[in-house]
């Protein structure tokens, strides 16, 4: 058992049972859970580098379309497949559109779908998982067996079928994509939340809240869900690449957002036909997707070490 020096530093008078203001004695270290986590995160070099790269990619996507002299959708066959030049850092595609600007515009869509999808996944997963975990018993059984059944469905076909159901006319919009990818990938988050809530509700501070007379929604919102936050943030950064990748894949096979709206997947699809002669059109968006996904994974890894130090101790 670890000796706690703060307790030893108590003034002698306290042993006599005298309640004194100074009883807690020695100055305490001022810190917060989040600050500690941030410090641990900064010690993970891969995660820091990944965050910087991730930030730069987002910055590039946000800023470039505003400052670029080129219209990402303006067709100009005269400029088709121009090589890399100061004016076109990534060259142009078969319609003569500046790739540097198009990648940024496409990135906006890809990243926006990724973020919106992740938020939607978190919302659905937290609702479903916390209901199952908090109520427990038969409700938990039914909800989780349903989840198991849904797990049996393959991810991409599930997403594709959902897009077709949501837009029978075949016109796939931003929100259709978000909905389809959410429907296909909220399951894991729901399981994580359910597991967390099931474990956390055994804690004595939950009994203490019950003994005080706290109502169920107070226990859930004040005591259980805030304690799942660390795990949820990690889960979010693990879900994000899945959604980005899913969107890219659907766009690549032509089931994504309708053209001319660009996304990284659809730009890569444009470059597929001519990639032997003009590899950049396929290569650049693929690299962007790969980098973003890799960064998100490294960030998730760093966050897990930072927010849940116990798992690191076990792995080390």
């Amino acid at each position, binding site marked *: 058992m670890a000796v*706690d020096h703060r*307790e030893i530093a108590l003034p002698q008078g306290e042993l006599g049972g005298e309640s004194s203001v100074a009883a807690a004695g020695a100055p305490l270290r001022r810190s917060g859970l989040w600050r500690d986590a941030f410090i641990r995160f900064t010690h993970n070099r891969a995660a820091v580098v990944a965050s910087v790269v991730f930030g730069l990619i987002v910055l590039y996507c946000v800023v470039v379309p505003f400052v670029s002299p080129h219209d990402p959708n303006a067709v100009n066959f005269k400029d088709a497949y121009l090589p890399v030049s100061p004016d076109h850092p990534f060259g142009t595609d078969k319609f003569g559109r500046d790739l540097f600007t198009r990648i940024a515009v496409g990135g906006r869509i890809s990243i926006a779908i990724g973020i919106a999808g992740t938020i939607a996944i978190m919302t659905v997963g937290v609702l479903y998982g916390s209901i199952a975990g908090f109520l427990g018993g038969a409700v938990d059984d039914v909800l989780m067996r349903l989840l198991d059944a849904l797990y049996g469905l393959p991810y991409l076909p599930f997403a594709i079928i959902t897009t077709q159901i949501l837009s029978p006319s075949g016109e796939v919009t931003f929100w259709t994509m978000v909905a389809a990818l959410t429907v296909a990938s909220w399951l894991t988050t729901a399981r994580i939340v359910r597991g967390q809530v099931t474990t956390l509700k055994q804690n004595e501070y939950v009994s203490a809240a019950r*003994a005080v007379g706290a109502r169920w929604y107070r226990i859930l919102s004040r005591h259980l869900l805030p304690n799942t936050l660390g795990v949820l943030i990690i889960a979010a950064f693990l879900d994000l690449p899945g959604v980005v990748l899913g969107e890219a894949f659907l766009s690549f096979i032509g089931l994504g957002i309708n053209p001319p709206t660009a996304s990284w997947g659809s730009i890569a699809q444009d470059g597929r036909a001519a990639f032997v002669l003009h590899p950049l059109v396929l290569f650049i968006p693929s690299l962007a997707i790969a980098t973003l996904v890799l960064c998100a994974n490294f960030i998730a890894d760093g966050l897990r070490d930072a927010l849940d130090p116990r798992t690191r101790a076990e792995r080390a």
Partner: protein
Amino acid sequence: MAEVASNGGQEGALVEIENLRVWFPIKSGILLDRHIGDIKAVDDISLTIRRGETLGLVGESGCGKSTVGRTILRLYEPTGGRIVFDGQDITTLNQNQLRPLRRRMQMVFQDPYASLNPRHSVGRIVGEPLRVHGISGKKDTSKRVRELLEVVGLPADAASRYPHEFSGGQRQRIGLARSLALNPDFIVCDEPVSALDVSIQAQIINLLENLQSDFELTYLFIAHDLAVVRHISDRIAVMYLGKIVEISAAAELYDEPFHPYTISLLSAVPIPDPVVERERETILLAGDLPSPANPPPACRFHTRCPYVQPTRCKEDEPPLRRLAPGHVVACHWAEEIREGKIRPKEVTPELVQQVQAAAWEPPPV
């Protein structure tokens, strides 16, 4: 049971438990949970806690003493029996009806690490009862929190800190401050010091005693440490396997225990006097605590009792009988044991002796 009632005296009773049973179902099966048995954690016990007293509840781990405390606060649902708090039957009240009463009964938990939410600041933890009951505004709450922290001996600026910044003893003080927030009459102390270092235990015990006299509190003090219980309790109830086997005034119980279980428990407490310690008779119990899912019939202690007799022990369940004023015991042979007519069976811990003999070889020079 009549003795218990008259012994308790209806007049001064704050909490009365009558024939309380708490059974936890054992279920098995994949699709349909079949009910295959019950853990009889608390099986037909009656207790009276008088206003202003400390009732100690002792017994070994798993005997159901914490379950009793939690069931009084209705954190567990009773399977049968009645719980009366200050004249009001609370056995069947739902959680909404119970809420006003929760202001009057509170709990201090065993584990000071698990009983405080790590994401909440101390101010929020201590102020939560006030907020749940909508008692005071924001400003009043923080004032009351500072007051409470001072009462339990913590600095007022502890309110903005988080539980992980405190040691076990300090955390237990925070838990105490929370339980005092609503000015309760009755506090269930569920092994409040057993997770703490011995030096810190004394501080918390003294604090509990001071608070009791300052705020006219009634305690149900659950513990397995007999020395601690003796120090703080006015009366003590001894539990074995979901049953109460003996209730008596604290000093009397230690001077003259009647029930064989109490006798053996007390004989296991070391006496800090080497002469007495060497001379005195210790009674060892053989075997483990039987499963509460399938307790022994009749007297539940007969499987381990050093005084077990061929008759009655295995046939009839002993009722709680009054042997002296304010002293009840559930043993058929209590009088004979008291008068020394029945001697305990000698239980020798052979294995222990062998191990000790082996260890006593003179060390190599």
